[in-house]
């Protein structure tokens, strides 16, 4: 890929763990790749697979979901639900012609600022390696449910 390619990545971070880890990375002045744009949800369990597909449809090259470690979910078990959903979604992405590696799920606790930085850097580099997402836009834009739910 050319040097000019700057991946666009959407991050869905849960309010209690990964979002706070990103806050901690900030207060610790850790520097990392600027590619991931964070959307805050209360729990990673709120991340509807349609949101992920919607992100890819709107030009995201990668999607990163951050939740609490298993057993640490602020809402008991939302992260387990996410784990199962994203497993299934990765299979579907492959069928849609999107490399499943463009979707990554990470458990990052509020104290793991360093890990957050590393994941941000690694994932940005990985997506850079994969190159821009080239989808047959007809495949995902014809997802009627997405089109309906979307504004």
């Amino acid at each position, binding site marked *: 890929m050319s040097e000019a390619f700057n991946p666009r990545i959407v991050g869905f971070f849960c309010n209690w763990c990964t979002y706070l880890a990103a806050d901690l*990375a*900030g207060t610790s002045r850790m520097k990392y790749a600027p590619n991931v744009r964070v*959307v805050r949800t209360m*729990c990673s*369990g*709120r991340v509807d697979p349609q949101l992920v597909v919607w992100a890819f449809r709107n030009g995201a090259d990668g999607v990163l979901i951050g939740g609490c470690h298993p057993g640490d979910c602020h809402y*008991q078990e939302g992260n387990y639900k996410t784990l199962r959903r994203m497993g299934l979604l990765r299979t579907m992405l492959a069928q849609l012609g999107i490399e499943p590696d463009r979707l990554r799920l990470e458990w990052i606790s509020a*104290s793991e600022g360093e890990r957050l930085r590393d994941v941000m850097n690694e994932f940005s580099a990985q997506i850079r390696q994969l190159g821009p997402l080239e989808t047959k836009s007809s495949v995902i834009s014809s997802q009627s449910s997405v089109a309906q739910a*979307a504004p």
Partner: protein
Amino acid sequence: MDGNGNGKGKGSVRIGVYVCHCGTNIAGKVDVIRLAETAGKLPGVVVSREYKYACSDPGQDLIVQDVRKYGLNRVVVASCSPHLHELTFRKTVATAGQNPYLFHMVNIREHVSWVTEDPEAATAKAEALVNAAVLRAAFLRELEPRRFPVNPNVLVVGGGIAGIHTALTLANANKQVYLVEREPTIGGHMAQFDKTFPTLDCAACILTPKMTAVKQHPNIHLMTYCEVGEVSGFVGSFKVKVKKYPRYIDEDKCTGCGECIEACIFKEGKTPSEFDVGLSKRKPVYLSFPQAVPPIPVIDPEACIEFKSHKCPKSCVEACGDRAAIDFTQTTREVELEVGAVVVATGFKPFDARRLPQYGYGKHPNVYTSLEVERLVNASGPTLGQVVMRDGRKPESIGVLHCIGSRDENTNRYCSRVCCMYSLKLAHLLKEKTGAHVYNFYIDMRTPGKGFEEFYKRLLEEGISCIRGKVAEVSTWPQSPAEEGKLVLRVEDTLLGAVRRIPVDMVVLSVGLEPQADSDQTRRLFNLGCSSDGWFLERHPKLAPVDTFTDGVFLAGCCQGPKDIPDTVAQGGAAAAQSLALIDKGCVEIEPVTAFIDQEICSGCQICIAMCPYTAIQFDSEKSVAALNEALCKGCGTCVAACPSGAAQQNLFLDEQLFAEVQGVLV
């Protein structure tokens, strides 16, 4: 949905965008002028400004004026983390006469300016985030916070000085307090200390009156030998299950006379005393220490013959006589409590010196930990205050080693804060009691506190030798006649620039403080966060030092991080004040982040029901749709993500809001 018509029925969406400089914190990296300009061109934006400190009074005032002047019905502030100032700006919006939930915050400090090298990339990222917020703002709806009554009772977990002070403060304010302590007595580590730095007043003299006050206070329900097993509910109405372990002595019948201990067929104790850190032995039936509160003994089933063989003559029962307080049939009971607030004051554990074998703890008998020495120098300790070593000798030279398990890449990176001062205190006490020559080996002498530096100076004048250097090892291999039969400390004296060998009789390891071994369970019980060292996380390190991320749960004392007694007491008072602020308000306002189900759209598939961890969703078989109980919903949104027909939605995180935000970050 077009996103219009939600703002106070005015028809169109009118957004105000405020970009905060945060001094140079944001403006030093992000081009705030350009950011405000681009934001001004976004759809629906009526006014877009940058300002030095948006959270300051004039900054908030600016927003209020604009809302009124331009008839804004949406406000977007791009500044720091919403965890810091979301509430501040919600209030600003409310002051201006708008619904506080018609506000969205963009984090361009923690998530952008502080973490991005390149100013251009930072500005571009900030632009994308602001764009997303503006698109999302159009879909914001008016909401009302949920209000719930607050139960005025408080649970305090841990009966050390932090918990004691918290409980007494609350009880004095006429609140009912449940003080739960897992040991048979309250007092915690402070009860084990001899004297306290820098004033050298004796720990027992200042602590035991407070312990007695706890026992006598009509508003404190003291629950010793108990542990919290389960917590449910939320701020204002927690339900707590407490496990009450069997003491085998009925607390209501026992008078605390101690005759059972006298009468026990064990004439001498055989079990290492927990209170004396193993330096003395106790009987199977014992009182932790003479001033224990409550003064009710406990029977250790591991040591008691009756539990092992059922053949004990039970002289204790005989001694107890008519009081009939001894009950070998007791079992663990469960007590249920209802409280409005919880203060976690579970304390610390001393670093295990065995983890650093180079210092020979557990190998060389005359190597002690600092907590052992506290007992050793104590007038009511195992030697009645005589400093006699394990080999029976009185030491003539003593080495006190600072930073054992602190400021060490191999163990704990943090400074335990209290060790320098307590090491100096122990040096003073040891010298006073033995006349021995005392060396203190330190990395840096940290004495930041009222009267601390003066205490250090005093110690130097008393003739304590302070050597700057971390001891590498404690050995018993003599290299000269002077080292025969001694513990030899090998240390680099960094002020002298030379490696020295210093023979001493006794070594004191000033161990650091660590989180309790089961702090992870406690953390999960109360849904707390942890710093990377394992200490419980406060909501904000400066501005909310005793709050946690779980509303209604507060922290006090060393469970939040190492601290000395004055700081612990101050924090206990703060936790009590925070609890009072919550209780006396009478009701709590909870963010309306709950889910709701549009029953017109719901197909009755029941997928959401299985998703909910709080059983907040029930199936209404009459209407064949799902029905959500708002009081039980905690707002995770897992059901929303699962709903195949979009009937389940979450306030503040509606589908349309999130879809717009995702679209917005991808400019």
